[in-house]
């Protein structure tokens, strides 16, 4: 099927095309060589029409074939068509995961789309419109228009470059997937026809899926955005030029190199605050914070969290080299918060957010951290989202623990009934501290066996995809940290970072680096956590301790002799006790574990077990009874779904804690009953 070519507004784009030669000339000025392959570069002119909520754009894509084989086709992402109608794959999957990303009813005016008006080769004599059609390579959905296939008139050989000029227009949706508008607030991501990635086995250009993100080649971006005068604009890169157009609009030109996307935001309301990050041994970074005015009092917290990420990620993995970073505090209700883009990210806070409660620090550190894992190490998020999301989730928790310690529990009250809003008024439970790994485990538990991590992310069940990508990976990384030590794991991650920055690593690349750096065969571990969807659960199933010489029939000089209990040792000080501990593996996954046995005289015994069989009996004979036993006492295996059953006392002590927590519940329940009685 050939894409619709709309002729409307075609004329008004000619002036923008006319500017492109100038842009090309400027871009060609002397610069240091790119860090990346720099093979997918865009020069874009775009105008925002707030009244019609549309973008009118023209672009020239310069693409170099860096593979060994030729290709006579190009594949583009048209992400915004995911919100063209209710039948796109994104919308269908969003429904499957049991929630609307929008969290509210979708009105006619809320939809968005992108339409190509023209697409031609630049400089090719006689070449007309390029033949093109919508394709659905992942699921064959005929209603999905998020992938555009384009036929080239001639193959592009290895090392050759083509330039493709296109004109397009797009309708800005009311926010889906953190992209869109609300009021005069615009957040515009994945907004232009964007090339897929040509790989050794062909084009990698997936449809847009509800539970996955993005994948693109690195390149240079030179983007001119025309917006209403007086509005504040933030974008990937640095502003190189700003000019008034005399018609109430201003054109901002931003440029950046060695990035794989370009995102921008514009709003008349932003406060602009700037600070400079400086830390010994790391390059300085100018941080530009675009803040909602009502969050002015939280500016220092945003800067501090961003600095923490830049410093600790920089020290652990490698420096952030771009020299600038834009931090966007999205508008209330825009749904644009918590997302990463090259040299720009959105965080998100609330009017009331008690310090120490983990917000906005958590989301700020996480999205700043994505500058490293996603921005600089550009894995394929359609297929292996766990690589960046998991490593980054793990790293975020480490930064937060190191800089802020454990946060406390915050519950938000005053949640308007019938809406998807979270509560407006936070109440801090300062005595309830949150261990980030336990929090992850609680999120992961229900989804532990839902998908094999090795499967392409876009094939994960949409409702549990984030558990597998974020939580499972973070948990197996902290397991590796506890197993191998932080220095070793940090060396693995920094080597992986250094080796694969500005490239597209896959899972096997990570595993290879891990084995190389640690000098260990970790295949068994990765087999368990990555190639299988089994649960980890080790349990101390039983403990017993009895006199070693038990009452009963024993072999004597004259054959079997009955030995009474009194003669068998009893409870006197010289008695020896036989202690037995049965450890079970309840889950399908295996991991080497340690068993700690603690005796009543305070002595300890530690035993190792490869954890492969379904159960194992451990026996110790000592002059004291066993008090308790615990498998994996150091909680190395953070993926263990049920830490409660890891330990077992010979004599349970559950009465007092049960009464304690039941009595607290009872006070709640009595208050509940009294509240109920309000109505009668």
């Amino acid at each position, binding site marked *: 099927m050939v894409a619709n070519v709309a002729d409307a507004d075609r004329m008004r784009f000619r002036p923008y095309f006319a500017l492109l030669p100038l842009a090309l000339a400027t871009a060609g000025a002397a610069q240091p060589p790119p860090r990346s392959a720099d093979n997918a570069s865009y020069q874009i002119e775009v105008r925002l029409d707030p009244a019609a909520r549309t973008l009118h754009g023209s672009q020239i894509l310069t693409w170099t074939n860096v593979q060994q084989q030729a290709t006579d086709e190009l594949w583009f992402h048209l992400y915004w068509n995911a919100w063209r109608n209710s039948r796109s794959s994104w919308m269908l999957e969003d429904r499957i995961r049991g929630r609307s990303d929008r969290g*509210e009813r979708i009105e006619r005016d809320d939809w968005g789309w992108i339409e190509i008006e023209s697409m031609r080769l630049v400089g090719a004599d006689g070449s007309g419109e390029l033949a093109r059609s919508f394709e659905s390579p992942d699921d064959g959905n005929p209603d999905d228009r998020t992938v555009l296939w384009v036929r080239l008139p001639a193959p592009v050989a290895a090392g050759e470059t083509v330039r493709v000029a296109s004109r397009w227009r797009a309708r800005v949706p009311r926010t889906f997937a953190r992209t869109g508008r609300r*009021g005069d*607030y615009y957040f515009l991501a994945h907004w232009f026809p964007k090339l897929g990635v040509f790989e050794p086995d062909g084009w990698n250009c997936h449809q847009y899926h509800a539970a996955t993100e993005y994948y693109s080649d690195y390149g240079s971006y030179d983007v001119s955005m025309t917006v209403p005068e007086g509005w504040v604009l933030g974008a990937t890169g640095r502003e190189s030029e700003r000019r008034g157009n005399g018609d109430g609009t201003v054109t901002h030109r931003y440029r950046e190199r060695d990035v794989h996307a370009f995102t921008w935001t514009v709003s008349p309301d932003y406060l602009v605050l700037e600070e400079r990050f400086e830390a010994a041994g790391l390059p300085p970074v100018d941080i530009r914070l675009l803040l909602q*005015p009502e969050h002015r009092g939280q500016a220092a917290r945003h800067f501090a969290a961003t600095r923490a990420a830049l410093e600790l990620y920089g020290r652990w993995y490698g420096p952030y080299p771009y020299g600038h970073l834009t931090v966007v505090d999205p*508008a*209330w*209700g*825009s749904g644009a918060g918590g997302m990463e883009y090259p040299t720009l990210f959105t965080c998100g806070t*609330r*009017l009331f957010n008690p310090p120490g409660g983990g917000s906005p620090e958590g989301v700020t550190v996480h999205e700043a951290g994505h500058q490293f894992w996603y921005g600089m190490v550009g894995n394929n998020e359609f297929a292996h989202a766990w690589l960046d999301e998991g490593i980054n989730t793990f790293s975020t928790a480490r930064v937060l623990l190191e800089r802020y310690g454990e946060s406390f*529990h915050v*519950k938000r*009250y*005053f949640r*308007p*009934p*019938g*809406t998807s*809003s979270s509560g*407006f008024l936070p*109440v801090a*439970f300062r*005595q*309830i*501290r949150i261990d980030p790994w*336990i929090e992850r485990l*609680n999120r992961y538990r*229900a989804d532990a066996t839902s998908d094999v991590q090795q499967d392409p992310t876009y094939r994960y069940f949409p409702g549990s995809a984030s558990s597998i990508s974020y939580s499972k990976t973070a948990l197996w990384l902290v397991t590796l940290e506890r197993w191998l030590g932080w220095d070793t794991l940090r060396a693995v991650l920094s080597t992986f970072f250094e080796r694969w920055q500005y490239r597209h690593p896959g899972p096997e690349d990570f595993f290879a680096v891990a084995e190389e750096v640690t000098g260990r065969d970790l295949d068994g571990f990765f087999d368990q956590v990555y190639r299988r969807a089994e649960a980890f659960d080790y349990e101390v199933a039983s*403990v017993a301790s009895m006199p070693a010489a038990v009452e009963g029939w024993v072999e004597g000089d004259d054959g079997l002799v009955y030995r009474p209990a009194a003669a068998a040792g009893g409870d006197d000080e010289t008695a020896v006790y036989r202690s037995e501990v049965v450890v079970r593996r309840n889950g399908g996954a295996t991991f080497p574990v340690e068993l700690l046995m603690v005796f009543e005289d305070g002595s300890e015994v530690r035993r190792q077990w490869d954890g492969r069989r379904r159960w194992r009996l451990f026996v110790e004979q000592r002059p004291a009874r066993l008090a308790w036993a*615990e498998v994996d006492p150091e909680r190395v295996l953070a993926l263990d*779904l049920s*830490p*409660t*059953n890891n330990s*077992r*006392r*010979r004599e*349970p*002590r*559950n009465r*007092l*804690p049960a*009464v*304690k*927590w*039941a*009595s*607290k519940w*009872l*006070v*709640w*329940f*009595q208050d*509940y*009953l*009294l509240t*109920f*009685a309000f*109505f*009668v």
Partner: protein
Amino acid sequence: MSITRAFAAGVRDAVGSPALVAVLWLALVAVALPAGVIIEQSIRQSIGASRVDESLLAGLDLGWLGEYEAAARGLERSVSVSMVGAGAVFDNLEAWFSGELFTLLPAAAWGALYAAVWLFLLGGVLDRLARRQRGFVLAPFVAAGARFFPRLLRLAAVSAVFYWAVYRLGRWLFPWIERRLGEVTVERTMLAAHLAGAALVVLLLAVGNLVFIYAKIALVCEGRRSALVAVLRAVRFVAARPLRAIALYGLLGLLAVALVALYAAVAPGPGQGSWPAVLAAFAVGQLYLVARLTLRLAWLGAHVRFWERERLSSAALKGGGLG
């Protein structure tokens, strides 16, 4: 009668009736305790012989709680982080405001049982307040409870329709506010709008509650049998003196807010590690509940006094008997 005198009389009645408060508290404990035993056994079983007992005595072990919640069924599903400290009260306030008090069915079933018990007690309480009895004698209290229970039950059915309608309104109102303010990008504005909506919902709940309090008084103190007639009389009563009626209700409401604030300040956290500490924390919770019951009694007493005085004044003005 001035509202402050009614207020003071109500508080005096409540504070001067420790035996009655004790009966109300015992009834509350009697209904709640079996559920508490179920939860205690369930928690004990969940802990088993694990060493998690240590972390549960030191504080709240969120890892254990996560496992417990994952396996929770029925009433167990109401065990949550926010049962700590004042969170228990805030949770219920939130559920009262949003109407989600009724959504957790096992708890709601228990709530319905307690509501029935409360209705029974209410007959005795109002009868006693109307008769201005000082001491507490169980037999007439129970007899009055039994006598008035059917008519109070009918009134409860009428009030249930009203409250259901208010919550339906809330379910429509807040999404409507969000749609109307769909282009607003400032949380402060949205909060103000929702606060206005909440004020409306709470006002409707309070006004309805005010009317139904007087309707109960009409049923018991005037011996009316028809719930609808009692409601009509209550409406006429409030309509004749709306400011004073609402002011008295508001004054008592302020006392309730003060009580919640006080409890929020002193509510025990999660750290009790010994029997004395656990029992002391439980006692603080029970003191709060006793205070809440006393306030409830004061609430009823103040309204009964106000009702009686106002009716007497009306009768005196008319120069005849009670109308």
